[in-house]
């Protein structure tokens, strides 16, 4: 162990004048704090002479941490040339240098586990590939459970990992002792053993990736900082550095903690919503009997700590309840290199550590390391091309799993840049799930204080963020709130989950956390019943609403190109359609209303606001007569749902609302009460009869009041999104972002009827769909009705549960809900037949209909009946025409 505190001062970039320092391609790294002792020297280093920057490059990557080097490495592997990697200080001198070096697949969503799995394999083979030691040790890891709820979540994780093909075992506390000598198991109920997990020395991995990248021709320049990014006509054109400009086509922002500021420093500001928090871990001196380097990593999430072996001693950090946000005002606030240790802040983690490993009591402290990490508003990283600027890619906000994700994320981003999209669905990580509205520093500061503890918190179905709320609200928010609304948030918008009747109390927030039947069960049941038998109002104002207008028929042409369904319909018609990509996968699932010959009203899911906008903009010709406007904020959307919706509306308007005069999937602009210009659409998002009312916001309260007072005699009441979800899932309606993604085609989810195959109009994805129609689909969206599942006593499904067919893994669920009509749980998900000869097999009706299906909930399998069509005919009142069945089906989650 070198004592490097002194050397750090001597070599810190702040102290050395830039001119004197080594600005060569790169030199030997200075091991500043000496956490990782790794002698390294790079033979090709030109120590004395700074290499001049190239005047132009294809891609410039900013950030020489593990993420940036991984992107460079993978781009080079995919055959890219003229890659320049810029690092303001030394390679891997930021969070990478200080991070704990654990690579674990225990992540909260599958795509993250996949990335970690890939990273693990990459780091393992990196030493062989490059000859650089990476300190990789396959230690395995142990996730401990102190209570049954945690144990359940670990079991759920285990069944999810099995789907991806990652080896893991749910074990008893006694077996933990065999794997780890120090763990106190007295208060444990079980554990999850992940034998594939490992530890590395992060700076060494960083170094190895850099070496490999350099071998593939990547130019690496240290001590070069990016001042700003130049943009012309929505495209990246060049990067301005402190050593001169570099022209480039692509720019990748991997600046970690500084990614937010770098985004703001671009000519067209790019929103990279992340915020730093201090993160502490402890290093000890070697134990009396030094801990073996292959001792498994321990993650005691209930104690909020992790522990790994480190040089005979331990390294232990955690995610405390009261994190300390940092760099709110930017990088000048504090020096990254001189972060202070804070023992008082670390006390809860130290207590948890000594409780978990009591024998460490006599172990001597080496150091408490303060390593700032960056966090995002939803605990997932930020990846992909930014919405406003073509060629500007981001990979940042790793939520303190940078090392675990870097390999896989770098690969996905490289694929994205190469092929236009990664080889897997990365929507949960796509930076376009956020917009400018998540860019407020105050919002981020408050939110990350919730996110960081959440990493190790028990996550039960339907948890919501508690901070950064009430940002976007409907004008009816207060009215609904006083009527007992309980809220959840989507894309910053408050949406009612359900309405607690007066006099009824629900459990406190913490107590209502459960994997079993929730306390709102009866409340939502009553709302569903009202939707089925009378009429309910649901405020759905959060939807993304665009208006596309043109002077000629450019708008129609654009939509015909973008949408799979035929939009050349008479004025007033509503069309449900997907916007597909070249692969035929859903980029968006929306309803388009033809308001007039050349103007269209596009309704998309709430979180499509940024993504859909950029998708349309990307394909929109630069025509001054074609105009796209985001009108989300202009309209309040009320959904009148239920058999009596027609009666309520006809009392408020002189327009006849009967199906003869107002057929399904029609839109009329009419007056409701005193308010004129209300867009009334005969559709719902649940499959029940009813209407959507798009109301200019200033009329919202008036219309709502009128509807409620007229509706009284029909038994009208408010309903929330939970009722909506139950209704849409029992009707087998898929929801974009939950069930549908950019890898799902309309054919795979039984929506062939929404594709204009019969017309000759070309549209995006047509070729792929035609090919698929020819070849047959290899996966199919199905509906599973759980049998022998006791709603009261059994675990409830959520999503992500494995589906088994005849005992074989066949797919994964994507959403689930309790159907109050069927009195059963309904899960939606995709299944695909096992491939026999390596090529994917085609789904046949027999595959669906014949076979014993089971859904695995936390290791327990429940038999289920698979269906390709909903049960609607059994229980809906057949009031409307048959094509009611083909109602919209997206937004309801």
């Amino acid at each position, binding site marked *: 162990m070198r004592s490097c505190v002194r050397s750090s001062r001597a070599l810190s970039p702040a102290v050395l004048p830039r001119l004197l320092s080594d600005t060569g391609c790169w030199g030997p790294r200075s091991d500043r704090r000496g956490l990782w002792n790794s002698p390294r020297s790079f033979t090709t280093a030109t120590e004395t002479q700074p290499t001049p920057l190239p005047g132009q490059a294809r891609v410039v990557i900013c950030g020489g941490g593990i993420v940036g080097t991984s992107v460079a490495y993978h781009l080079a592997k995919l055959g890219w040339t003229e890659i320049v990697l810029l690092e303001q200080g030394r390679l891997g001198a930021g969070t990478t240098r200080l991070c704990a070096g654990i690579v674990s697949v225990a992540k909260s969503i599958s795509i993250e586990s996949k990335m970690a799995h890939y990273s693990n394999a990459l780091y393992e083979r990196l030493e062989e590939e490059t000859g650089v030691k990476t300190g990789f040790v396959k230690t395995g890891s142990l996730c401990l459970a102190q209570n049954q709820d945690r144990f359940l979540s670990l079991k759920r994780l285990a069944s999810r990992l099995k789907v991806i093909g990652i080896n893991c075992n749910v074990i008893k506390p006694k077996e933990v002792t065999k794997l780890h000598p120090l763990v106190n198991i007295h208060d444990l109920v079980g554990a999850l053993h992940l034998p594939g997990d490992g530890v590395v020395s992060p700076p060494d991995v960083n170094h190895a990736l850099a070496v490999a990248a350099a071998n593939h021709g990547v130019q690496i320049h240290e001590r070069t900082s990016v001042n700003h990014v130049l943009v012309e006509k929505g495209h990246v054109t060049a990067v301005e550095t402190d050593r001169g400009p570099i022209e480039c086509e692509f720019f990748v922002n991997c600046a970690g903690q500084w990614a937010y500021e770098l985004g703001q420093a671009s000519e067209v500001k790019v929103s990279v919503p992340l915020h730093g928090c201090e993160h502490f871990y*402890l290093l*000890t001196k070697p134990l009396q009997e030094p801990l073996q380097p292959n001792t498994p990593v321990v993650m005691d999430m209930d104690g909020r700590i992790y522990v790994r072996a480190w040089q005979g001693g331990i390294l232990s950090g955690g995610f405390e309840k009261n994190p300390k946000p940092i760099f709110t005002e930017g990088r000048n606030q504090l020096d990254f290199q001189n972060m*202070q*240790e*804070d*023992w*008082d802040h*670390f*006390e809860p983690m*130290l*207590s948890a*550590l*000594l409780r978990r490993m009591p024998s*460490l*009591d*006599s*172990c*001597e*402290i080496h*150091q*408490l390391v303060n390593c700032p990490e960056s966090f995002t508003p939803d605990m997932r990283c930020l990846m992909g091309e930014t919405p406003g600027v073509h060629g500007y890619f981001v990979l940042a906000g790793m939520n303190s799993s940078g090392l675990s994700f870097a390999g896989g994320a770098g690969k996905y981003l490289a694929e994205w840049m190469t092929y236009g999209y990664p080889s897997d669905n990365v929507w949960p990580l796509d930076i376009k799930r956020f917009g400018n509205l998540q860019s407020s520093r105050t919002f981020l500061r408050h939110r990350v204080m919730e996110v960081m503890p959440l990493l190790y918190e028990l996550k039960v179905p339907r948890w919501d963020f508690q901070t950064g709320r009430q940002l976007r609200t409907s004008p009816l928010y207060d009215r609904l709130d006083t009527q007992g609304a309980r809220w959840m948030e989507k894309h910053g918008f408050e949406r009612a989950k359900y309405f607690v009747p007066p006099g009824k109390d629900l459990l406190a927030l913490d107590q209502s956390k459960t994997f079993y039947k929730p306390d709102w069960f009866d409340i939502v049941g009553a709302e569903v019943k009202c939707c089925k038998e009378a009429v309910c109002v649901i405020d759905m104002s959060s939807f993304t609403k665009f208006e596309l207008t043109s002077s000629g028929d450019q708008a129609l042409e654009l939509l015909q190109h973008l949408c799979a369904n035929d939009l050349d319909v008479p004025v007033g018609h509503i069309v449900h359609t997907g916007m597909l990509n070249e692969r035929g996968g859903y980029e968006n699932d929306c309803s388009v209303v033809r308001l007039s010959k050349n103007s269209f009203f596009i309704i998309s899911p709430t979180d499509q606001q940024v993504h859909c906008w950029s998708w349309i903009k990307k394909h929109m010709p630069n025509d001054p007569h074609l105009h796209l406007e985001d009108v989300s904020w202009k309209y309040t959307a009320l959904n009148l749902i239920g058999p009596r919706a027609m009666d309520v509306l006809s009392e408020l308007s002189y327009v006849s609302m009967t199906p003869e005069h107002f057929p399904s999937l029609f839109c009329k602009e009419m007056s409701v009460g005193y308010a004129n210009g209300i867009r009334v659409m005969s559709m719902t998002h649940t499959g029940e009869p009813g209407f959507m009312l798009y109301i200019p916001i200033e009329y919202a309260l008036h219309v709502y009041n009128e509807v409620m007072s007229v509706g009284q005699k029909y038994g009208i009441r408010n309903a929330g999104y939970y009722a909506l979800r139950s209704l849409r899932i029992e009707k087998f309606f898929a929801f974009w972002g939950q069930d549908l993604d950019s890898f799902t085609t309309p054919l795979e989810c039984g929506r062939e009827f929404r594709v204009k195959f019969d017309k000759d109009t070309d549209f995006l994805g047509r070729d792929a769909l035609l090919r698929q129609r020819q070849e047959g689909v290899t996966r199919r969206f199905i509906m599973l009705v759980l049998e022998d599942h006791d709603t009261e006593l059994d675990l409830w499904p959520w999503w992500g549960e494995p589906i088994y067919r005849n005992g074989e893994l066949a797919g994964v669920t994507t959403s689930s809900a309790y159907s109050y009509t069927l009195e059963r749980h309904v899960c939606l998900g995709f299944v695909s037949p096992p491939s026999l000869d390596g090529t994917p097999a085609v789904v046949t009706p027999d595959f669906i209909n014949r076979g014993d299906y089971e859904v695995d909930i936390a290791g327990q399998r429940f038999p289920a009946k698979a269906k390709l069509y909903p049960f609607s005919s059994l229980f809906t009142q057949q009031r409307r025409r048959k094509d009611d069945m083909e109602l919209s089906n997206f937004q309801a989650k």
Partner: protein
Amino acid sequence: MATTSQLFRALHGRDFSRIWTSSFSCQTHLPCCQSFQPGACLNQRSPNIERRWYPTRGFRTSAVQHSYHLSPPQVNSILKANEYSFKVPEFDGKNLSTVLGFDSNQLPANAPIEDRRSAATCLQTRGMLLGVFDGHAGCACAQALSERLFYYIAVAMLPHETLVELENAVESGRPLHPILQWHKHPNDYFSKEASRLYFSSLRTYWQELLDLSNPGETPDVREALINAFKRLDNDISLEAQVGDPNAFLHYWVLRVAFSGATACVAHVDGNDLHIANTGDGRAVLGVQEPDGSFSALTLSNDHNAQNEDEVRRVRSEHPPNEAKTVVKQDRLLGLLMPFRAFGDVKFKWSIELQRRVLESGPDQLHQNEHTKFIPPNYHTPPYLTAEPEVTYHRLRPQDRFLVLGSDGLWETLHRQEVVRIVGEYLTGVHQQQPITVGGYRVTLGQMHGLLLERKARISSTFEDQNAATHLIRHAVGNNEFGTVDHERLSKMLSLPEELARMYRDDITIIIVQFNPHVIGGQQN
């Protein structure tokens, strides 16, 4: 019995009995109570009084330790019962006063409490008055001081013109401009019965001031303070000698005169801080050092046997043959702990005067043996004075707060500790140095113990909204580590009335917070 009391003394290493002289016991809650009945004093004589008289006699009641525990909310409600905060109002979003506000609180040990506190803003002159009064031999004198002293001070500071105006207004029956704006806790009461008497004494005082001053003169603060203190004590003495036709008032003025009280008063006006102290209350300034820590600057001298100057002064005022008796066993005449006090006419009047006043007094006095008690070696009265010692301090930006406290506070906590606790509380940050391991060999276990202890210290801060309450919590509940031990706190507060006084004295605290920006601005 004697052993019991010695045990208690040994336990705490301090002697709680301040005075062995006679008093009118004040057992009813309100001193000016309407429910007063002849003979009440005797009937209600409690071990508490006995002990004050002759501690060697010990207790009559058996000292059964009630071993019930108070929960943290119960503890809090006891501690917070008397807390009071005042924030100086802002104008145009700016606080132009050097005083940001004050927090005050008191915790009784005697039943009823013998401490009093007052706070008021002078309306006709500038400045704010704050005072802590510690009564002995009953609360009557302290009560009278809390009502009257600030008026005397305020009047003594009035310029000639205002005095004229005041007198004219009274003369012609016009309403008076108020002189003081009081900042009172609901428990801080004023007696209605005596107000006429008090007013007429005050009026006589300003009439005299009017005669003595000349137009255009503004009195010096120091002289005004000294003058007011002495005048009030004189009036207390005179009122008792003259008596009152109203039997109740007559009895009341006697009780005021025969009981005693110390006073520690602060006058803040801009950057000028005057402390007038009589007795063993204390005023300590919290000074923030450049490194953020706090140090204590004491602005008053205790007038008791520990103060050599004071012993010298007392001895010099009496013939040499009394040198041994005038200060005996660290007490004045072997009886009284403070060497300066208001009231306590037993140490001021001649024996003849005492006899005469008592004989003409109400019957209740005759039934009380103790009033007839004359201190031993009582040859050359007066032995006691109410003249204050006035200290002046010009406030500097680093002077962050002032703590006025009765001796109940200072005998439990060292002034440095007081200033640290208040300073850390007010600044919100705990100036505990952050821990660094450095090159030391520290085990995880040792570090853990240290961190837990530091945490306990911090957690006690968050319960209090009032700095004075926070200080009382520490004064009563501190363990040997200087951190609040809830169990200890709970035990101390659940002591039965008759025992409480053995373990602690009444505690009264006023903490004045200064505005460093205004102070800095005025300096330039």
